[in-house]
């Protein structure tokens, strides 16, 4: 069968590209290897009555332009912000981060009288960097080696924004992009507990420690989102992260698109340097002159493309591109709300993201374990119970806990990710949480444990890297995924990339998908419709 365009992989980026292409009038087919859509933005009911956000679990980065243009609210998407969070230390204290300015100041002062002012300075510094980088998200990164007028004007655009910062800020920005999160925070914050709370966003999903250069940028990546103009705010997608991709799929199908699940692609079919279609594992073949891959760059070009079709330097670039999975995940069905003796009863911050750490050294040790091929003995966890806010994910009075775990290696020094290791990994995490919430363990009804290897197998994220490749400076902007190929096109004519391996990177953002759609349509002499209001 012949289509105008085929998208491989129904992750949120693939579905975003598909949505825009279908709306531009292209007869579009989406191929997904799993029986369900969503990729790493998926919700599944593994225990009757409970819905998990199996991989990603909080939403902030998803671009409002995309939500609007694809009419996702009409197809059931509701993003609900949450208000605060906390880090508990082992001595019975906690730091409560709150979106309420007054409460936050008071809490900072409680932890260290100077940190209230220090935090304001920190927040301003981050916001300034954010303001600089954010407009670049929904734009195609320029190729600095090209003389194409569009590339030059994009470079000028970035250059001007950069120049407008002024000399001192320019230096700050350059420093910021290569600094470690620990170093960055040391400039502003005194309290260890406050520091380590803020450091979390700098290491999530990355194979870097809090003292590794580049982690300040990773923090920025997590600040780039917003919930309704509230920059850096995070929320839940009602019904789990799968509601995002479910809405995208419905929107796409309403626009005439077709989705085939249950068999992945085996090969991109290439003839005379040009893609002509895809061959599935089940033997089916589908044809189109435009094929867009939502898989990560290694999967796309090393596993599913014949090497002879690709220039050698490109293949080298792809092989050099770093994944390095570093995260695991536990999804747990709870029989009731666990208690946290160090927190006041009904503390509002229990509704937000909880962490359990004493300071930066503990984080760094957690990272050392990973380098040695072990999961962290005392890991960083991002622990949330969304069912306190989302009434749809568990029966009333019952709860769902999502536990993101940093660090867990893709390859274990002591063997493979078999059931015994997976269970031992879960025990490490649950034991740590239990030290702060003694009744947690006994409330567990069901759990799903996911190692980087599980994430790779199920979602197809190579080595389990949650961003489809590390977010380090050498792999960002015009370097993502490979210098010279940062504009969603590949060496093979008609074959494009739209996944998180491309600019501006991972997270449930949709920007790579929308940017890729723009480039595809441009090549077909059409224009992306971001809605009259964009």
């Amino acid at each position, binding site marked *: 069968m012949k289509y105008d365009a085929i998208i491989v992989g129904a992750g949120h980026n693939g579905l975003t590209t598909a949505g825009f292409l279908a709306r531009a009038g292209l007869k579009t087919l989406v191929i997904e290897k799993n029986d369900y859509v969503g990729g790493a933005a998926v919700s599944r009911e593994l225990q009757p009555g409970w819905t998990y956000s199996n991989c990603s679990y909080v939403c902030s980065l998803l671009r409002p332009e995309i939500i609007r243009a694809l009419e996702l609210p009409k197809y059931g998407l509701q*993003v609900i912000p949450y208000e605060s969070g906390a880090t508990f230390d082992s001595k019975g204290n906690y730091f409560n981060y709150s979106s309420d300015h007054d409460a936050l100041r008071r809490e900072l002062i409680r932890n260290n009288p100077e940190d209230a002012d220090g935090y304001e300075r920190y927040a301003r510094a981050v916001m300034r960097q954010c303001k600089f980088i954010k407009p670049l998200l929904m734009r195609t990164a320029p190729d600095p080696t090209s003389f194409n007028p569009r590339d030059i004007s994009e470079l000028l655009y970035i250059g001007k924004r950069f120049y407008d910062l002024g000399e001192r800020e320019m230096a700050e920005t350059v420093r910021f992009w290569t600094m470690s999160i620990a170093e960055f925070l040391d400039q502003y914050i005194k309290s260890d507990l406050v520091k380590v709370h803020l450091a979390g966003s700098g290491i999530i999903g990355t194979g870097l420690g809090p003292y590794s250069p580049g982690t300040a940028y990773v923090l920025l990546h997590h600040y780039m989102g917003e919930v309704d103009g509230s920059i850096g705010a995070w929320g839940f997608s009602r019904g789990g992260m799968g509601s995002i991709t479910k809405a995208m799929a419905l929107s796409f199908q309403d626009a005439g698109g077709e989705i085939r699940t249950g068999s992945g692609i085996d090969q991109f079919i290439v003839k005379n340097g040009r893609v002509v279609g895809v061959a599935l594992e089940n033997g089916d073949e589908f044809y189109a002159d435009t094929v867009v891959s939502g898989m990560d760059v290694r999967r796309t070009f090393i596993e599913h493309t014949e090497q002879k079709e690709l220039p050698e330097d490109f293949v080298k670039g792809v092989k050099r591109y770093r994944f390095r999975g570093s995260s695991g995940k536990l999804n747990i069905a709870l029989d009731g709300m666990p208690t946290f003796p160090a927190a006041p009863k009904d503390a509002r911050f229990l509704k937000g993201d909880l962490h359990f750490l004493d300071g930066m050294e503990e984080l760094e040790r957690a990272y050392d374990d990973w380098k040695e091929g072990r999961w962290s003995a005392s890991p960083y966890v991002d622990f949330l119970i969304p069912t306190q806010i989302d009434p749809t994910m568990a029966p*009333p009075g019952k709860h769902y806990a999502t536990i993101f775990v940093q660090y867990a290696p893709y390859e274990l020094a002591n063997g493979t990710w078999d059931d015994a290791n997976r269970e031992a990994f879960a025990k490490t995490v649950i034991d740590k949480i239990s030290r702060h919430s003694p009744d947690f363990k006994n409330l567990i009804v069901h759990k799903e444990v996911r190692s980087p290897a599980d994430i790779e197998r199920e979602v197809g994220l190579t080595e389990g890297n949650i961003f489809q490749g590390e977010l380090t400076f050498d792999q960002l902007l015009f370097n993502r995924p490979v210098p010279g190929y940062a504009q969603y096109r590949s060496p093979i004519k008609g074959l494009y990339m739209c996944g998180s391996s491309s600019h501006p990177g991972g997270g449930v953002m949709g920007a790579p998908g929308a940017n890729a759609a723009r480039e595809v349509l441009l090549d077909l002499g059409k224009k992306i419709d971001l809605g009259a209001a964009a």
Partner: protein
Amino acid sequence: MNKALTPRPQMPMGALPAPFHDRIAAENVQHSWMNWNGYASPGVLDTAEFEYFAIRNQSTLFDISPMCKFRIKGPDAEAVMNRMVTRDVRRQKPGRVSYVIWCDEDGNVVDDGTLFRRSEDEFLLFCQEPQLLWIKDIAWGFDVEVTEATHDLAGFAFQGPTTAATLRDLKIKEIETMRPFDIRDIKIAGKKVMISRTGFTGDLGYELVMAPKDALAVWDAVYAAGQLRGVRIIGYEALEMARIEAGFLLPRVDFISSQTNLRVNRARNPFEIGLDWLVTFDKPHYNGKRALQRLAGVAPKRKLVAIEVSKDKAAHHALVYHRKTREVGFVTSALWSATTKRNIAYAWLEAPFGQEVKDDLWVEIYLQREIEWQRRMERVMIVERPFFVHPRRTVTPPLNF
């Protein structure tokens, strides 16, 4: 000295506590109160955004006691109501609510409200503006008794996707069969409650009305039952966000009653406001009918339209331009709609703009950015009202969330 000369009480100034005041005050950490018809009504309890999201995600309580309320009772009650409002009240069965407007002799809107038909011969009318005299004037010569019930009835809106589940937990079986705009008489905490499936939010929800002496018992029971499902007390700001999304208009904000305007050209008829669907001519004479029949045949001189604005800054108080130069109207209500991720507003536009001419319309938005003011021209698209209504609003029996 004349012994009869004892001091008579002087009327208090300002806002009085409404029936649920103590419960609301306990949660009102911002100490934010507004004056609504002489009562203290919460503006925001802690954060308007989070209160708003409770409307769209969980459940919310909002005190509606300060609304103006009237009881119309007697053999001619139906005839009087039918003579007053523009809809056909004869078609409204006992146990049903309808949204109504009423007009003056020129066909201009006096007010809008919700009309509860309690029985063949009894109605309750809830509205924003005092209407005792207006109703009495209409009732003159009819066999009917019109009384003000504003202070005799307390009430609260219970709105949001988990409201039905909470009422189920309270064993209110009646909700299973209640369709939108149905009324039932139920008991909560042993107290008599009139419950209707109505509200101002475009979402699943109910309004509960009871005697003031029973008010706290009912509130407490619902609040306690709602705990597992995330109930939250909300203020006016949050409700305002939901009401704009849901396409409801607010007198004194989006239009002004023809009984209160000083400037004669400020009165508005239903065709201008976009409430044509509430006007029927297929019924006996009613106030304004003749004028409305005439107005129905001519193009409105101006229209209140729903608009979408480019970018994400709400167009509060903005003027509307054609081709960025000619002033053709102004915005009344504006909102960045968090649920639809659209920048929405209502605007009055002079004909032919918003009617035949819909292109090249712009709003002028002023933004203060760290003291400095910026002026932005943003594109205007004429769209349909409402901006958002969730399907769960009407599903019967109602869903659990």
